[in-house]
Structure formats: structure tokens, C-alpha cells
């Protein structure tokens, strides 16, 4: 079992509040990814769960037992650190054995667990080397191995891939996903990389400035971001956000007008928007299409076209200073300075009110 429940967690350093009223329920066997820009408090939250730090308020439960005041060692969790934090003066084998020796496990059992972890993670050939003699990817495996041998209730991973090069990161990410599937143990994974979050997570928690912005399955976050921050954070390239004015609003529809002749009617259930209100319209770059005529489209001027082969990333400007990025599935796109017409499909639009909260629902 590895169910972790956080209730009203606060953390402050002196007068500075790092975490505000965090409520989170992590199910058994779930891969939960905490994602957010640096300084959003995600690592602090992980340290609170680990027991390396104490919350100033709130309650942490593991499998229903209150562990808020329980020391890190007694929580039965294992952590993989961003810097791996392998003991440099010990061999890989000693690194793996250290935690087990500390709980006075029998030598034979320790050897069996190390052998099992080494087989699973392909680290058997260098069990007798020191961490200094390993490559980044090997260190990463050892760090995960050190967590695996503990046979913990849950794994806590603090940006475990951030020190690897791009190629290794992708392969290790896949291995982590496979490992999670095999162990079926709860994992809480911290990252600032939304691609890692999207690919690994059962559920994603988007955090900003010590607050949870949205919790949900990856595609739910992508398709229906709860607010402007999540909309901008999830998805690459970022969602385009354009300022619009509400022209008319009914119970189920909102008509907005924006720069460059933008005019759209968006479905909305019971909105508080009134004609004349400022709002923000969001559209993902991949949803934008090239149009042949100016009717029903937006006029834009290309500032840069990046041909990637299968697609072309077009940076454009609409009516003065509104930047727009479009990813077009074609190669014949006019280059710099040329005017083009772009279609923004209404059913793909996201509407946010002046407080930044989502209005439209599909």
C-alpha cells in the first residue's frame, strides 16, 4: 500500500510562505507528477512528504496513519535526488547496502536484494566501482537502485532526469515508466519539464507560487486547462493567448472579437461574462491552420518561419504587437515579412475571463 494524503499543508520560512494550503491525495500505485516553474515549491512539498522538512501546518498521512511528526527514516519512503546524492566514498554495492545495513537486515537478504536490483537496472557490471567512476546515466541507475532495494511504500523522485543529456533523458524516462509499471509502487515525481510530466504521469499536479493550480490526467490538463497559467505551462510550443473583447454573451455562447479581424463564437456554459468585458482567447499552435482566403480568418505577418521537415513553426504578428505561433503541417510557408491568413478553429479555442479562469467548455 502506498496511499499518501496531504491535508492543508503550509510551509513558511520566517515570514515567507512557500506553500499555501496544499491538499492532495495520491492513490496507491499512482505515478503523480508535480510540475511547475522553479521556485514554485514543488521540491519543498516533496521534502515535506519525505520527512526531511516539517510543515508549519497541516497533516501528512501515509496509508491512513498520521506521519506529520514521524522522522524521514520511519516513513518507509525512498527518495531519488536531483544530484543523485550517491555516497562518493562507497562502492556502488555499499551505496545500495547502506540503507539496509542501517535497519540491521541480514547479510544474505541484503545481497539478494542488491542482486535483484542490479539485474533489474543493469548495474551488475559496476557494483564494485565508486560513483566517481560512473557516467551520468549509470549514476542515475544506481540512485534509483538505492531506492528500489529499500522496497519502499512510495518513491519520491526529485527531478531525477535533469542532469542527463537529452538523448539519455528520453531513454531513461521510458525505463522509469517501465519500472513503475513493473513495481506498481506509488511514485511522486517532481519536474519542471512538462514533457516529462505529460509522458510519465497518471496525474499531473501543476503548481505555481506554492499553490496547486490544477490536478488532473495529462490530456485533461492539455485539453481543458483550468486557468491561463496551466494553459501556458502545459504544451509546447506554448498556447497562444490573445486579448479579446466580449461582444455578446448568452447562457451557452460567447461572441468575442480580437485583433486582426478575429471574430469567434465560443460555446460556454453559464458564463458570468458580459458584453464589453476583457477576456483572453487561447489557441494552441498545432490547432492553427493556413487559409487561402481572408474570409473567416486572421491576417498575420510572418516574422520567422522555422522549417523542421514534417512541420513548419511560423512566428507571426497580428495587428501591431500580438504575437502568434502556428505549427503548420506543410513546408511551403511564406517566409519573413509576408502576410498570411490563418484560420483559428472555433471548437479548438479556449476562453479565459479577466481573472484568468477558464470559461469555455467543450
Amino acid at each position, binding site marked *: 500500500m502506498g496511499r499518501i494524503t496531504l491535508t492543508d499543508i503550509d510551509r513558511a520560512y520566517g515570514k515567507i510562505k512557500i506553500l499555501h494550503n496544499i491538499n492532495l491525495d495520491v492513490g496507491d500505485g499512482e505515478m503523480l507528477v508535480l510540475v511547475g516553474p522553479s521556485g514554485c515549491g514543488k521540491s519543498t512539498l516533496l*521534502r515535506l512528504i*519525505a*520527512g*526531511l522538512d516539517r510543515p508549519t501546518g497541516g497533516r501528512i498521512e501515509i496509508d491512513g496513519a498520521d506521519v506529520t511528526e514521524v*522522522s*524521514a*527514516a520511519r516513513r518507509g*519512503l*525512498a*527518495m531519488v*535526488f*536531483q*544530484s543523485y*546524492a*550517491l*555516497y*562518493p*566514498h562507497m562502492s556502488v554495492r555499499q551505496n545500495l547496502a*547502506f*540503507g539496509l545495513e*542501517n*535497519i540491521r537486515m541480514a547479510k544474505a537478504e541484503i545481497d539478494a536484494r542488491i542482486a535483484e536490483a542490479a539485474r533489474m537496472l543493469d548495474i551488475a557490471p559496476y557494483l564494485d566501482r565508486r560513483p566517481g567512476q560512473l557516467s551520468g546515466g549509470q549514476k542515475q541507475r544506481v540512485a534509483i537502485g*538505492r531506492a528500489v532495494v*529499500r522496497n519502499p511504500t512510495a518513491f519520491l523522485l526529485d527531478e531525477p532526469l535533469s542532469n542527463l543529456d537529452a538523448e539519455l533523458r528520453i531513454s531513461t524516462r521510458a525505463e522509469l515508466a517501465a519500472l513503475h509499471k513493473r513495481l506498481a509502487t506509488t511514485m511522486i515525481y517532481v519536474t519542471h519539464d512538462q514533457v516529462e510530466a505529460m509522458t510519465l504521469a497518471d496525474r499531473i499536479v501543476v503548481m505555481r507560487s506554492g499553490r496547486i493550480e490544477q490536478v488532473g490526467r495529462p490530456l485533461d490538463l492539455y485539453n481543458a486547462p483550468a486557468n491561463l497559467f496551466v494553459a501556458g505551462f502545459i504544451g509546447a510550443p506554448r498556447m497562444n493567448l490573445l486579448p479579446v473583447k466580449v461582444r455578446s454573451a448568452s447562457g451557452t455562447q460567447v461572441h468575442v472579437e480580437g485583433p486582426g479581424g478575429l471574430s469567434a463564437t465560443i460555446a460556454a456554459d453559464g458564463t458570468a461574462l458580459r458584453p464589453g468585458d476583457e477576456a483572453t482567447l487561447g489557441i494552441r499552435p498545432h490547432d492553427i491552420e493556413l487559409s487561402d482566403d481572408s474570409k473567416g480568418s486572421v491576417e498575420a505577418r510572418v516574422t520567422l518561419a522555422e522549417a523542421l521537415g514534417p512541420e513548419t513553426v511560423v512566428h507571426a504578428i497580428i495587428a501591431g504587437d500580438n504575437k502568434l505561433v502556428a505549427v503548420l503541417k506543410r513546408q511551403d510557408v511564406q517566409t519573413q515579412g509576408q502576410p498570411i491568413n490563418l484560420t483559428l478553429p472555433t471548437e479548438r479555442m479556449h476562453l479565459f475571463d479577466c481573472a484568468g479562469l477558464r470559461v469555455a467548455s467543450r
Partner: protein
Amino acid sequence: MSGVVSFLTRRRGGRFWHWTDIVSWLWLIGGLVVMFGPAIWLVGSSFKTPAQLAEFPPTILPYVSQQATVEGHDKPLTLYRVKLPDGSTKVLAELRRIGTVAQMVDPKAPNDIVKVNIASREPVREIGFATENYTEPFVHFDFLRYLRNSVFVTAMATLITLLTNSMAAFALSKYRFRGRDLTMLLIVGTLMVPLSVILVPLYSVVSAVGLLDSLWGVILPTVATPTGVFLLRQYMLTIPDELLDAARMDNASEWQIYWRIVLPLAAPALAVLAIFSVVWRWNDFLWPLVVLSRKELYTLQVGLNTYAGQLNVQWHYILAMTVVTMIPVVLVFVFLQRYITSGIAGTGLK
């Protein structure tokens, strides 16, 4: 060999001597003389006889006069190279000397006595070592006992210094608590108080706890060194906190974190402090002199002092024993010097 030659003759000016080449050679040779001159002179002089020590001008190397056994004389006679009136030179042995005239004899013809003015002769000398400077103290002077005391004081003091200082440094570098920086400041502040200032109160304390005239009285007051705490703390600050967190997740107690993680990782700094401590305690003179009054407890440095009497200083023994007392310190440096460089480089930078 050719590598050494090409290394030594390497010049900035390529084929020609640049002026900086000359200046650096002079500077380096000068430095060598300044650094090594006294040490070599000390070692050379430690093998000289008392008479030769008093000689002027002094020599670097020790010499002994050659002697020869001459028929009809029980003792060996000293040989001199004499310039005879006919202009030839000859090696003669001195029988006796009366004023400025010496009666001398040819060792091959022991019956012909020649009278020679002492100005026209000089002793035949060769490099020789007065090894009795070294052997005598071992026999007559309690050298071994003093050595044992010194080794005991140095070893115990160094061990306790490493242990207590590293514990203090661990607490001051890895835990956050109110007054931590103030404590550190106080500890470093004591660096500014020299021993001579606190000698009398320290003596009272040591006397009150009954450690006078005991080697522990020499050891204990010296083990807490601010330099050591500072050095180790600065080094331990560079050990990432994540390692300690990892150990905490691994069920390690705080003592285990100190003993199994922090201490092994601070090894370079510990080696540096060990070297310092050995040198300090080995060379300590004033404090042992104050605390110890029974002769059998003397450390080497205090023991050496007994050769310097009020009226008579036995330089030949002092020099020889100084060389002997230098050996352990030199050995410590030879074997641990790589730690000094790596350790100090590590302590200075993050």
C-alpha cells in the same frame, strides 16, 4: 636524463637568454639557498665536534683532522701539512706544541724531531662525521624516554583534536540553530588570544583539576583548536546537504551520518589538520615546560633544553638532537603533503 637537461635549460627567449630567464634563475637559486641553507647547515653542523663548531669561519660540511699512529707513541697523533724552509711540503705529525713552535715528526721516520712555526702548517683534514653527537645522548641522555613522551603527547593530542574539532565543525556546518554563527565567531575569535596571555589562568585550571606534572595536562588544554574547527567547518560546508538527506532517508542516525558519511568525506581536511596538529604538538615547548616538572615526563623539546645550561651550552648535542626531532615532522610532510595541497585547495574553493 636528456629530458632533465632540456627542462632545466628551457628558456623563454628560445635560443637566447631573455632577462626574465636570468631573473627567475637567480630568484629560484636564492630561494633554494634561503630555504635549504639553514637546514643543510644544521644537519652538517650536527656532525661537527665542539671544537669545530667554535671555528671561524664556519664550514657547511663537518671535517675531522687526520691522525696517524706513530711508533713510540701510545696515542694517535694529529697530522699537519707543513711548509718546510726549503720550500717543499711534507705531512708531519705533531708531538707537542710550545708557544708558536710545534715539535713534529715524520711518521715514517719517528726519531727525527722537526721544529715548525705553527703559522707555516695547516691540519690535514677530511670530511668526517662526529657520530658520537648522536650516539652519546642515546646512552647518557634519556632520549628514548623523552621520545616516548613526545610521541604519546603528539599522537593522543592529534587524535582527540581530530575527533572533537570534527564534531564541532559538523554541528556548526550541517545544523541550523539559533546562535550558530555567533558560536562560530566566538571560536574563531579565540584565535586572537595568544597562549602567553592565558598561560597563568590556564595553569591555575590545570593545577586545580590535578593535571600538573602529567602528560594529560599537556594534551587536554591544547586539543580544542579554533583553526581546526574553522578549517574543518569550511570544508564540511562543501559537502552537499543532499548526501545527508539521502543518508537520513537510508535510516542513518545522526551519529552514523557523522561517522560514516561526513568524516570519510572530510578526509583531506582531516589530513591537513592532522599534519598541523602533529607539528604543533611535537614542537610545543612553552606549555610542556610550564606543566611538566618531573624530568621523566619531559617531552623532547623540553628535554633538549637541558643541554642549554646557564654557563655552558652543549651545541653539538643540541644540534644533533634537533635533527632527530625534526625527522618525524619531515616524514609527516613527505607522506601527507599531497593532502595538504588537495586539502587546502578544497578548503579555499567551493
